[in-house]
């Protein structure tokens, strides 16, 4: 199996910039608005997120292609994928607490949040829908993770400033965050058409 590195690069760029999960696919918004208040949490979340996403994409790919396709039970993919993600998150939570309490203290709280995140679930679903190969799935998951991290960091740095701004009362909190996200999304529209896949 030869790996076409240009294709992989394109996948990463497409997943992170052009089809950025937050700004053009609108997934993971709950977490996006939840943890983008502070830079520190945003960075912690991004790291945990990318790692979990790549591992769960790999696991789901293996199970989908070696168990579900041969058994012809692909219609159960929603149930199976959510099981894989939830199980994996729970397992890494337990393992991290035992093996590295320091890391758990820093990132553990994000793990709990991740299991109900739609991006983590969307990545395996898209991988299965597009029939990506194993390496392509990993590249897609990595790109998505980077894209989400980028979105979080941009948003966190804006919101830290926004705290000090004088916003009209009804717009305080989430509404203004939405409008700001809209503005960033507008900027991200500029990336569309960068690569034709």
């Amino acid at each position, binding site marked *: 199996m030869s790996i076409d590195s240009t294709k992989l690069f394109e996948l990463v760029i497409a997943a992170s910039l052009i089809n950025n999960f937050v700004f053009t696919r609108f997934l993971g*918004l709950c977490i996006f608005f939840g943890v983008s208040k502070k830079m520190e949490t945003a960075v912690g979340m991004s790291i945990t997120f990318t790692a979990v996403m790549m591992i769960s994409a790999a696991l789901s790919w293996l199970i989908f292609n070696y168990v579900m396709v041969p058994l012809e039970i692909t219609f159960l993919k929603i149930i199976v994928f959510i099981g894989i993600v939830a199980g994996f998150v729970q397992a890494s939570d337990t393992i991290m607490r035992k093996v590295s309490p320091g890391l758990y203290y820093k990132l553990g709280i994000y793990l709990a949040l991740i299991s109900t995140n739609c991006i983590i679930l969307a990545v395996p679903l898209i991988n299965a829908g597009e029939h990506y190969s194993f390496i392509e799935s990993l590249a897609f998951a990595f790109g998505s993770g980077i894209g989400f991290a980028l979105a979080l960091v941009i948003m966190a740095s804006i919101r830290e400033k926004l705290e000090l701004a004088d916003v009209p009362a009804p717009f305080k909190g*989430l509404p203004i965050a939405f409008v700001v996200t809209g503005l960033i*999304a507008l900027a991200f529209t500029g990336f569309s058409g960068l690569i034709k896949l």
Partner: protein
Amino acid sequence: MAQTSTVRYLDLIKNGIFKENTIFKLALSLCPSIAVTNNLRNGVLMGAAVLFVQVMVNITISLMRKIIHPRIRLPIFMLVISGWVTVTDLTMAAFAREAYKQMGLYIQLIVAFASILARAEMFASKNKVTPSMFDGIGMGLGFLFALTVISFFRELLGKGSLWSFPIIHAKPLLIMILPAGGFFAVGILMAFFNWMSMRHESKGH
């Protein structure tokens, strides 16, 4: 007796639509509120799908509440939810092909809705079947209502049409159907709801 219980059910429904509106008040399950609301038909279909899943999940959980061991309740809830989502997903794929092509992924992702899990955990697992059903209807209708409002404005302003019938014959504001427009629409509507409840409160005092 019958009178009071009807009132209670109505309250449950009202609670879901206004007081605890999933999108405008609780700010949960936001992803589809922007993703599929660039035209009215998709918004309504998505809302209906969520309504169905929410009601069925509430009923199922409520029926099973006595036999679910509390320690493993979350995985069981997830299983029930994903089961009903699969049902919806396959039905939509069979009967609403055109819409499914555009929003299939988001239908599948109803699984990850915090609001559905939250209602199962907070309400259905503690209440009898009928109240749970009404709670589900209320929450689902609230969601449907929110999606309808958002997609109404976005399609009207962005394409000048409603349910793909042309209404306004002027140059539409293209931005409203772009991703960015979705964020603007939700932000402004949220602010509007905040403003309404602020006024409501200040009148009460």
